């Protein structure tokens, strides 16, 4: 599958940015709410981590003092202290770990919710360019990776910093010379980490990109499954998913190889540390400069330092993965929303007319879809838009709903330009039945009232009756509680259209827009609907798009849109006598039948 790369939600950005700190600083606000919990947990973490330093000190004492002195009582006391300290640590850790993870879970849920809200508010044009699967992976899996950054990586980081500082102090006190000996390893490590960080980021971005691609492909295939089967394309689809999978596998393995290269250095570091302590420290010990207990202490500290790092061994790519994800997540959050609206004018209902003035529009590449449209719709008027397919009828509606902004000209509601009108108040005034039926998972009732519990079932039933779908719904085993599966696959196509139409009626809009709302409805039902509509549309404005001229017969005025231009307008009778495009359509649809 191919996708445009939207400049704002781009997958292509595999350039590593040096913005780690910026990313973290953007992430921080999500944790602010849980400041107190985090502080308590961190203090507990620091405390328990520092306490673990006590263990080797106690054992050193046993080796250096109690054993040579054969002090049984002292041994017992130290063993007891050790036990108490360790149990205490474990208890503290238990609560701290749970708290940290809970906070992580909560904060990420907040982030998810923000992301979702953001995506609901970005312009529709982004949805043209980004497959749903890609957007889902932004909200779902990308944020999930960030959770790990907090609840695992951050913990290990704090732990290790505390360990390094604490150990340094203890080691310095116990034996400064030996400590300085191993200290010189530190800069080498920092250097290696820096190199790693730089080289691996693009690889992880590439991994995330592939994941999103695979997910989009899966979703799309699932939606088109019957078609794939009937056209016997199973092998091709299988091949494609296999290729995508292999591509992902390759980048993933590349990332792994980076990771394990650094891992090798870490392991070597530990060995070098131990060898230094044993070799040089052992030499000193032979000369009596230090005790065996000291050597023990140093060695066990070194192993303890590398321990937590090692535990992450199979999954630590988390950090890099998380930064790659974070970049994508914040890219979405930084995307410009549909314009700010608060200060704009609110509209309640149409007072006089809608004016389309010099309207020109293209979606992309200056491929003009509408050119210089001029017309007025009076309040209470019923307008039909007809014309060649691809002529631009749906696009006109999209502009009226402020899904897109026209490049030239404007649309005026009464005398206010819609760019100055509050978007939501404008949309609330309009009942829109889109050309493609959209249904949500949920019951029929929920779909009709769009999950708004305040709308009474009676009102819904009334609307359904008007739309000629009430009887059909009642025939279903669970009637209005029937669940709609996956955009309505358990209903016939015509039934879905009728539901979509009924929904618009439930909301009792001031302006009703029907975009091919009854194109797959049989003529008898359509006639019944029209009877209901006539009564409903009193004092209401309606824009009806249809190819079937029977659908448009209700209209007071017909506008013929051809290749983005208004070529004819007038009443049905006027247009017929004009013998233009409308007349031709009419003849084709009716006269030729009579033969």
């Amino acid at each position, binding site marked *: *599958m191919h996708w445009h790369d939207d400049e704002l939600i781009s997958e292509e950005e595999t350039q590593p940015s040096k913005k780690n700190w910026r990313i973290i600083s953007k992430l921080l606000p999500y944790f602010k709410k849980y400041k107190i919990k985090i502080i308590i947990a961190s203090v507990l973490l620091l405390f328990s981590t520092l306490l673990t330093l006590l263990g080797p000190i106690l054992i050193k004492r*046993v*080796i250096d003092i109690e*054993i040579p002195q054969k002090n049984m009582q002292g*041994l017992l006391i130290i063993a007891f202290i*050790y036990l108490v300290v*360790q149990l205490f640590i474990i208890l503290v850790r*238990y609560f701290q770990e749970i708290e940290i993870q809970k906070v992580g879970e909560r904060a990420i849920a907040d982030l998810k*919710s923000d992301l*979702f809200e953001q995506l*609901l508010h970005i312009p*529709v044009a982004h949805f043209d*360019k980004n497959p749903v699967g890609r*957007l*889902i992976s932004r909200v779902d*899996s990308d944020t999930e990776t960030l959770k790990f950054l907090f609840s695992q990586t951050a913990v290990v980081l704090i732990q290790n910093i505390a360990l390094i500082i604490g150990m340094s102090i203890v080691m310095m006190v116990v034996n400064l010379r030996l400590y300085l000996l191993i200290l010189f390893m530190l800069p080498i490590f920092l250097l290696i980490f820096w190199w790693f960080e730089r080289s691996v980021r693009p690889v992880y971005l590439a991994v995330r990109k592939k994941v999103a691609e695979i997910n989009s492909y*899966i979703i*799309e295939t*699932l939606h*088109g499954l*019957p*078609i794939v089967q009937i056209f*016997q394309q199973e092998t091709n*689809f299988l091949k494609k998913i296999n290729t995508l999978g292999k591509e*992902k*596998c390759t980048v993933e*393995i590349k990332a792994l190889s980076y990771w*394990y290269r650094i891992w*090798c250095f870490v392991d070597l570091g*530990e060995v070098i540390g*131990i060898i230094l302590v*044993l070799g040089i420290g052992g030499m000193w010990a*032979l000369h009596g400069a230090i005790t*065996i207990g000291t050597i023990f202490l140093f*060695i066990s500290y070194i*192993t303890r330092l590398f321990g937590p790092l090692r*535990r992450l061994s*199979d999954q630590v790519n988390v950090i890099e993965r998380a930064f790659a994800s974070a970049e994508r997540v914040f890219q979405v959050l930084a995307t410009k929303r549909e314009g700010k609206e608060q200060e704009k004018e609110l509209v309640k209902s149409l007072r006089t007319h809608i004016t389309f003035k010099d309207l020109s529009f293209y979606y992309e590449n200056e*491929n003009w879809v509408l050119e210089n449209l001029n017309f007025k719709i009076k309040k209470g008027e019923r307008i039909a838009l007809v014309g060649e*397919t*691809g002529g631009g009828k749906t696009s006109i509606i999209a502009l009226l709903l402020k899904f897109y902004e026209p490049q030239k000209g404007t649309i005026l509601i009464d005398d206010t330009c819609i760019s100055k009108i509050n978007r*939501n108040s404008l*949309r609330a005034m309009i009942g829109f039945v*889109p050309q493609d039926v959209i249904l*949500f*998972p949920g019951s029929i009732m929920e779909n009709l009232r*769009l*999950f708004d519990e305040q709308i009474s079932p009676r009102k819904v039933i009334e609307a359904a009756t008007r739309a000629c779908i009430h009887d059909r719904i009642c025939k279903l085993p669970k009637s209005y509680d029937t669940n709609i599966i996956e955009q309505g696959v358990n209903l*016939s196509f015509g039934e879905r259209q009728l539901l979509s139409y009924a929904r618009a009626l439930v909301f009792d809009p001031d302006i009703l827009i029907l975009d*091919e709302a009854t*194109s*797959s409805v049989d003529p008898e039902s*359509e006639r019944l609907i029209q009877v209901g509509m006539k009564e409903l549309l009193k004092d209401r404005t309606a824009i009806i798009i249809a*190819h*079937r*001229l029977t659908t448009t017969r209700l209209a007071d005025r017909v506008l013929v849109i051809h290749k983005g231009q208004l070529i004819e307008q007038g009443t049905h009778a006027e247009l017929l006598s004009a013998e233009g495009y409308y007349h031709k*359509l009419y003849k084709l*649809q*009716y006269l030729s039948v009579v*033969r």
Partner: protein
Amino acid sequence: MKSISAFWKKKKLWLLFLISFTLVKTIIVLLFPYILKDIIDGIEKGFAEQKLLHFVLLLGVLGVFRALFSTLLPYSRGRLNEIFLVEERTSLFSKILSKGHSFTNRFPAGDVLQRLDHDLSELSWFACSGIFRPVVAVITVLVALVFMVDINLWLTVLAVLPSTLAIFSWLKISPYEYRYYHSWRDKMAKVNNYLQSSFSGIKLVKSYTMEKKNHRQFKNILVNRIEAAFKVIKIETLIHTLFTAIEEIGIVFILLFGGIFIMRGNITIGEFIAFNAYIIILLDPMITIGHFFVSKKRAEVQNERLEEVKDYSVDIEDKGKVKNIVVEDISMSNVSFKYSKDVPLILKGINLRIPITKKIGLAGTVGSGKTTLINILMRTIDPTEGEVKIGTFNIKEISLEKLRALYGYVPQESSLFSDTIGNNILFGRKCSAAELSRVIKLAQLADFIKRQPKGLDELIGEKGLKLSGGEKQRIAIARAILKKPKILILDDATSNLDAETERELVNQLSATPDTTLIIISHRLSILSVCDYIYTIDNGVIVEQGTHDALLKKKGLYCRLYQHQLIEEELKK
């Protein structure tokens, strides 16, 4: 977990490599404290500097090997995880590709995605890394025990004794773990589904200003998910903590009894220190083994969720053996159908004949069962009763591949893929440029494609959302024609075309002499090109005949037809 064992059966060499090198690596790791012991005891006794350096050198050499192995092994495991992931995804996908309508009814797309993404990637971590971690751990424990027993049997027993507790406590906790994890996964799928539907329906969300409400709903779903996650967090931390505690008690035992043993002269200080090192080395494997049970339970859940998808009924069994069929008249006798057990029949005792090369029309009210009938014909669903025959063969006897090859189908709803216009028309088939342009002309697409800046290479967006309704339908028609089917089915496929384009298209299609054409339409004027028309109402064929004959009958067909005429027309 069949998939995992099958994977390893194929990768025996890798298995051998991993196990043997794991063994070598473990021994190297465990030699460390042993040498440490000798060094410490040497220092204690004050041996020659020369000897100390030898020992340290030996340690260094072992260290290099240790570093090498302990990166090479996890790397290979990680690699295998990925390979497993690819293979398993492909195999699952191939299973999904054969599923029928009941699968779609049962699993929303978001749910399936969740399984193929999260569940599968975690399962594949388990398939290799997850399984090998405890293997490494067990080997470590066993080899360490050998070394430890070699030093002192009683101290070993004392150090290991508390671990038995771990097994006991595990048995008590594990059922909860399993349950919580399951419910957490389900909640995750809910989130995914919700995202899926909101983003797909974004235009509706916006035009009905549902943004706030949707955001609220989403938050609620998230809250449910968080609650489920908390339970998992609590129980997993508990398990983890228990194992650590038990191990720490082991260390205390060593400290205490080890100290006593030294004082009594049973062991040396070097041995004591080595013991300490061993028990710390053992800590990790113990946690790993403990964690293995957690991850195994999880993997079981994941596996179960994947198998559920994999093993779900395909609806249609491809058992037919007949491969070379001559297309003859198609007939349905006494066909009835319902979508599931507890719902009423959708089709009731349908009998019809579709003579070869004839043009057949299907008319009827909304929801009368036309699309269902077509699906039975193409065998995407099997009738509950009755049979469908092509010539003398029941279609169940014909291999699915051959049967489906007969049909070209234009579905009622948009069914395009996010690819270029050209690829959507070709849809995996190859054909000559001349043929392609013939098809494009036939589908009335030539003008439209000429207008596109990139022509056939223009991208159309998800489900073709960058196209107008009529453009989508025409591309779908082109796709079906290009297949050169023996039987072409148009299911309300011209509903979004203007009369001019529609008329042109239908006239051309009905002029192909050797194709059987089945047209479903609510625009009855189109059906006048058909040789024979069936009218369906409520799952029953109520009328049949030619267009003219049906009009004369003054039944449902005539009524529908008359509704379509504009008043003036009626007056004439």
